[in-house]
């Protein structure tokens, strides 16, 4: 089984091989760089399967796409795939940057007249705020990726893009991008592996839930083999009406170095830091993170669950802890949770006491993302 450090080492090997033997066809490869959220970034050379450009354009023969992707290397990979598709199919790509999300964008999108939207759920949702009803009505396909898709986010997007077929792609930059894709018959967060990708569950519990392991070719003869990607899921049994056998149900981030929500990253390390400083009235804690819709606006929701020897505490103390914790915990390098609450991006922190000790299904997990609201 491979861990993140093994994939990082594989990345180094892929780059070393690239230096010794440069590619004859550069456009079949991409240098991917992870965000470094969970430690040092991983830099890796990777190819893509031959069907990837076709999957990007989709059966709808979308000709004008908008990509809503934060990472530069992932954004470039998207544009490269658009470039690499069949010649007879014109594909134009507008790769948005978060700094483009300003007043002018609505007019620009109306001018561009996109037929497809592709990208991170939270980025797509933010982009929709700059799309007129007329422009949104012409979107025929939306492909979501990067984050667990909540019911509220999906329903918000469906409401904004009434004519769009929804698709979802399970990706990991360090594993070379696309791993699995949702077909028309599957509910959200369920996927069939893309060609040459194999997914399995390691050490499943009684419900079949466990760590997701990924195997796939990466670069030339190099492979990722049974890489513990850091997500939790289960394999659904039975043949899908689309004919595919293997179906992965993604249940969330495990291990919980971090959880992505509402475009922000909740880091366990930061919660540990603040918990050690602020939380006097507890023996243990858990954090549940999710997204919710409030008056049509997607917001992050954080619930801090505390255990203190089975004791319950007053509502006033919960509110006091919530206030102190919110002002101390940084969600971005410069903004605390309280700042993001004030900006309307997150709901106020909720603090709850548990009378029972937390179960240790997975060792030392404190941070959970909740797919269902």
């Amino acid at each position, binding site marked *: 089984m491979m861990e993140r450090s093994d994939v990082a080492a594989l*990345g*180094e090997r892929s*780059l070393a091989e*690239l*230096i010794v033997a*440069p*590619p004859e*066809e*550069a*456009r079949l*490869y*991409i*240098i991917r*760089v992870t*965000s*470094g959220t969970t430690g*040092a*970034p991983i*830099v890796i*050379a990777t190819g893509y399967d031959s069907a990837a450009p076709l999957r990007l354009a989709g059966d709808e023969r979308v000709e004008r796409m908008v990509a809503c992707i934060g*990472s*530069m*290397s992932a*954004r*470039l990979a998207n*544009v*490269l795939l*658009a*470039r690499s*598709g069949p010649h007879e199919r*014109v*594909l*134009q*790509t*507008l*790769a*948005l*940057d978060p*700094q*483009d999300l*300003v007043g*002018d*964008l609505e007019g*620009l999108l109306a*001018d*561009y*007249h996109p037929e497809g939207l592709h990208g991170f759920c939270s980025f797509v949702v933010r982009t929709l705020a700059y799309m007129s009803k007329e422009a949104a009505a012409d979107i025929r396909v939306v492909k979501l990726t990067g984050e667990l898709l909540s019911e509220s986010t999906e329903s918000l997007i469906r409401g904004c893009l009434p004519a769009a077929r929804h698709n979802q792609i399970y990706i990991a930059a360090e594993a070379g991008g696309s791993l699995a894709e949702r077909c028309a018959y599957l509910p959200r967060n369920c996927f069939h592996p893309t060609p040459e990708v194999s997914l399995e569950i390691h050490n499943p519990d009684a419900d079949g839930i466990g760590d997701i392991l990924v195997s796939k070719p990466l670069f030339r003869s190099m492979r990722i083999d049974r890489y513990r990607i850091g997500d939790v899921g289960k394999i659904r049994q039975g043949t899908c009406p689309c004919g595919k056998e293997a179906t992965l149900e993604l249940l969330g981030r495990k291990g919980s170095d971090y959880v992505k929500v509402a475009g922000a990253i909740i880091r366990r390390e930061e919660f540990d830091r603040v918990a050690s400083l602020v939380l006097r009235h507890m023996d243990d804690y858990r954090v549940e993170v999710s997204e919710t819709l409030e008056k049509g606006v997607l917001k992050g929701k954080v619930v801090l669950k505390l255990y203190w020897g089975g004791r319950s505490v007053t509502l006033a103390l919960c509110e006091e802890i919530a206030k102190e914790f919110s002002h101390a915990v940084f969600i971005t390098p410069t903004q605390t949770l309280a700042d993001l609450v004030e900006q309307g991006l997150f709901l106020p922190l909720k603090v709850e006491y548990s009378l029972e000790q937390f179960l240790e299904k997975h060792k030392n997990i404190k941070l959970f993302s909740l797919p269902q609201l």
Partner: protein
Amino acid sequence: MEDQENLDTFIQRIHQHDAPFYREHWGGVQKFAELPVVTREDFLKTPLSLRRYKDEKALIKIVHDPAGAFLSEWSFVDIGREAYGLPARRPMVFLENPHEAIEKSMWCYEHGMLPLVGEKTLEIATYAAEKYKIDSLITDTSSLIKLEPYVRGRGPLDSISILGERFEPKELLHFGQYARQVRLVLALPETGAIAAAALAAEPRWEALPDCILENTETLLVTKKRLLVTPIVRYQTTLPPLNNYDGAL
């Protein structure tokens, strides 16, 4: 003479095209030297759909200007024809503007090079540059200044191409020690590369192939290729180039 004939044919082709932008802007004027200039304001007020002269696989960029924003579409083939960088084995593209960074990375692909595009966070960008052992840079002045600790701490690169609209060459001179070749490339997002010069206190600018530069109060640019939105007598806000005599 042959050049003039080609230019006349090029102008005629634009006149006869379905896209109305230049035809309406020019009225009945046919001679190149008499064509009314076009400005960024004209691009700002004209939707891309009315100034799209060909339909190819393309990248759409958003060009932000204090007066607003507009779309600039570049076919990948045309991106490849620009002179943004120099041949390299492991180029890194590190630019302030993310649209330009993606475009210049695609320029690398069009030239058979596998680029590393710099992430926005400097630490991640330099970490990746070290890992990939980059041998050349396509960058801009502000990004290069940020990268200076990295380029200072490694062996010389093969080349650095500094892209921009304006340069302070004297402030860049010391970067000459970090690469075997450092060049300045005058470029605008909507026109592509216009002129290039080796880094020097007083650079000797040369118009790039397919570019016609006219030194008026400001620099007028024409690209002799049918771009998605052609550039014909485009009035920039750039000062005239000192070493360029303005001859067609």
